[in-house]
């Protein structure tokens, strides 16, 4: 059995239908993290649909998404790209030893004012 993550597995996790996309590009156009990403929200939709999962799993974009739901809100076809990005991120961090950040990384990133919300959310987004 191959441990390769399939398109079907990604779509099972997030329940998104990338086929609905009409390629207007609004998701990437409105993404506040666009400049930080290598693959952009509209590319996630296209690449998942075409089974190019490994490239997305190796991408830094999955840690740059701000979960601000701008792409999801503004998509005229209700494709919900944010859910696809999260599903790819989960497909990575659910693997053994593939956490992007752990509690051991936190002390070095702290400052006096950093709210608990930031720490809790990083553990939820980047670690299993």
């Amino acid at each position, binding site marked *: 059995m191959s441990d390769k993550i399939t398109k079907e597995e990604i779509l*099972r*996790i*997030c*329940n998104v239908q990338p086929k609905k996309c009409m390629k207007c590009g609004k998701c990437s156009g409105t993404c*506040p*993290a666009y*400049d*930080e990403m290598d693959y952009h929200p509209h590319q996630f939709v296209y690449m998942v649909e075409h089974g190019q999962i490994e490239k997305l799993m190796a991408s830094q974009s999955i*840690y*740059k998404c*701000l*979960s*601000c*739901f*701008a792409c*999801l*809100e503004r998509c005229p076809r209700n494709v919900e790209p*944010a*859910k696809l990005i*999260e*599903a790819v991120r*989960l497909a990575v961090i659910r693997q053994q030893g593939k956490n992007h*950040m752990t509690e051991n990384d936190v002390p070095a*990133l702290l*400052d006096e*004012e*950093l*709210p*608990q*919300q*930031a*720490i*809790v*959310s*990083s553990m*939820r*987004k980047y670690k299993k």
Partner: protein
Amino acid sequence: MTYSYFPGCTLKNKAKDLDRYGRLSAAALGVELEEIEEWQCCGAVYPQASDEIATRLSSVRALNAAKEKGQPLLTLCSACHHVIKRVNHDLATNADIRTKVNNYLELDTPYQGETKVLHYLEMLRDEVGFDTLKKAVKNPMKGTKIAAYYGCLLLRPSGVMSFDDPENPSIIEDFIRAIGAEPVIYSQRNECCGGYMAMEDKGAAQDRVEKIHDSARKAGAELIITACPLCMYNLDVNGKENKLPVKYFTELLYRALGLEEAKDNV
């Protein structure tokens, strides 16, 4: 009206002001907040994946505690509000999630999304009413130009959050008018501040923050208000030297209600 109140982790620590001013102002307005016993952190990020069950449980426990008391659940932190409101929607609309959550929790009666979830601002708008609030204001902030910063979590996705018009919201501007100040409309008020990047990529967060301050400043704002501890941190700590001051909306509410003077006179 009595609410089951969910303060959340940050309001017990770095955002004590958001909580304290909120509680004191609510009491002055005749709104009773009963803190939920043994509430657990909501996790701060809504689990978008439909196969995530464990990460939804703390929200359901709080929602069920409110249900058992027959009270609406009131939130104040934008992130708690976002997570709890969306998990509640899942429990009401997603049979698979509902079944798995209830199988795990084994409550006396299964939880099915019955609790009404309200943000403090919604309570002010829908329960107290901004007209009533206006009459209760003792120190109107006359002439102060204030930029309402919504950010992302309160508004989106609008189909679930039902908080306000996601692209042209007005609830915080109406709040600003009620306390006698002047709201300033600016383009970045409902765009993300980049708070989630603040730990790993400070530069990216700083760029986002500067766009927001710049947009508010150019519109003539003297002050930005928010309901989110992470936005507060990010807009302040990652702002440049000419950044605008950032306050929690509850602090302004507290001052407008004249509670500071009332305290000093005791």
